[in-house]
């Protein structure tokens, strides 16, 4: 089975406090720790496990610049066979549809049975997989938390739906799936693994390689644009307890007693 996984390098929210810069035009990028988007990492792990079971190859692809290459190498250290960096100044500022159309052009250069994305990334839109599938007229399922390969024509995929229930579907290949966290336990990638793939050549594909009209993507083609970042006013917020730990604990116990938390 030939599997393509679309990945993205994002600020790691478990390693950083995300703050807004002084004019609200962006988040504060100084000293940010980046990593592969968590959902994408689960998708790559799933792809590797499928390949190990039924054979084939796993290719990871990202749309970005030379800095984003590191996540491709990380996922190749994890076990992906190939990496592709899609990069062009014309792609900068693309909205979800722009990214999906760029990925479509890349996918049409190859032959893939299964295409995966993470269920969402840093912007939380969860849109690229569904758009890509519709653009390519392929079946799609989002929030996938289990995959069984039935044969080379179809799979059984579980979707996470409300209340912890799972919606089971049979889906024809090729298809596009967006992967939810928790579908597997992504393997650890050590520094040795990263070193092993450090010198592997990663091809870079630009707009002309992919036959993409530059005016249809990037900022010019974007219909959804971010104006600024802000912190919403969600009301009063919590009463913050301050003082020594003993004082805080004492106050909290009083509050918990009065609210029925401690009887």
């Amino acid at each position, binding site marked *: 089975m030939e599997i393509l996984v679309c990945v993205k390098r994002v600020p790691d929210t478990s390693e950083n406090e995300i703050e807004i810069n002084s004019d609200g035009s962006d988040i504060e990028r100084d000293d940010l720790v980046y990593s592969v988007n968590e959902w994408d990492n689960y998708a790559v792990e799933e792809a590797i496990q499928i390949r190990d079971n039924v054979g084939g190859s796993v290719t990871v692809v990202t749309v970005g610049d030379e800095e984003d290459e590191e996540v491709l190498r990380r996922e190749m250290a994890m076990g992906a066979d190939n990496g592709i960096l899609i990069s062009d100044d014309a792609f900068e500022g693309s909205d979800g549809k722009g990214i999906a159309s760029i990925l479509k052009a890349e996918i049409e250069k190859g032959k893939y049975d299964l295409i995966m994305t993470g269920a969402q990334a840093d912007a939380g839109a969860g849109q690229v997989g569904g758009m890509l599938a519709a*653009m390519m007229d392929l079946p799609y399922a989002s929030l996938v938390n289990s995959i069984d390969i039935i044969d080379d024509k179809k799979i059984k995929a579980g979707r996470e739906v409300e209340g912890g229930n799972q919606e089971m579907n049979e889906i024809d290949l090729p298809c596009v799936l967006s992967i939810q966290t928790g579908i597997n336990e992504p393997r650890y990638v050590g520094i040795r693994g990263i070193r092993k793939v450090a010198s592997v050549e990663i091809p870079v594909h630009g707009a002309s390689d992919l036959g993409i009209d530059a005016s249809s993507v990037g900022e010019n083609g974007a219909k959804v644009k971010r104006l600024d970042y802000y912190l919403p006013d969600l009301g009063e917020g*919590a009463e913050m307890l301050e003082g020594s*730990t003993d004082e805080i604990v004492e106050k909290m116990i009083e509050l918990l007693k009065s609210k029925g938390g401690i009887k």
Partner: protein
Amino acid sequence: MAQQIFAYIGHNNGQAEDSALELINAAAKIDSTAAVTAIVVGSGIDAVCDAVAKTYKEVWKIDAAALSNPNAEVTRKILVNVLPADCIILIPHDTFGMDLSPGLSVKLDSTFVADVVDIEGNEGGNLKLSRQEYSGMVSAHMECDISQGAAINIRPGSFAPDESQSAGGTVTDKSGDAGDIAESTRRFLEVLEAEAGDVDITKSDVLVSVGRGIEDEDNLEIIHDLAKAMKADVSCSRPIVDAKWLEKSRQVGTSGQTVKPNVYMAMGISGSFQHMGGIKGSPYIVAVNKNSKAPIFQLADVGVEADILEFVPELTEKVEEL
């Protein structure tokens, strides 16, 4: 002519979801003069349509036995067949809306916006709205060109419900326009119900809930100890279940359990909307988190900026002494 606005009505067990009452108010923020048409797709949905007609002046019903199971692919085809060009359709941002809308926008050749929490206004097809990014840690104002139509996913609970029930609307059967509704490349099989756990956290009065701040499975002991001292049950946020440190039946959130305790102790939980969506009944919320910017501090009643690994054992010790 103003753009037509539609609201996609989610329903379950013969009842419209709460979002049905919210989408009409979201639509009013796009165009306060628009007559909003509700669309209900399913099988045996007369009761849903009648209920929805109390809120919407016009309700389109697409009813067929083949539509008894959820299938975003089939629903997408139907909507492409029945919707007029350049319209705006509002859809709840739930697991079905997430499945449906990105692809729908491609097929309608319209603009897609996900998970909208507020709408500021529409100036000649230029819609300004708000979303959240980075798991709710920051919000963003967006500008969207909706002049050629749009599929806009609205976060449930973000807009006030219209509870007037005074629309006196009419239901129009559009089933004949739906086109081919057979499942093709994606076929629904079944819904597997979540497994019951050893503890039913939906019945708990006090919950000690743990999130990513616990850092390591071995550290969970401090949470169990606090819960024991407080005679509370242990629940958790999604990353703890993803890591397989606690069973799924203990997960609070839209993709887990909906709980309604009196007191909720959020220990090392950032407070994403998916998590908070599983907490009902306005409990007293205590938050301890080492990140002062965590959204949980906006939502909790009382907060402590501290590392739970240090704070929780101190609290447990004092509670045990009582």
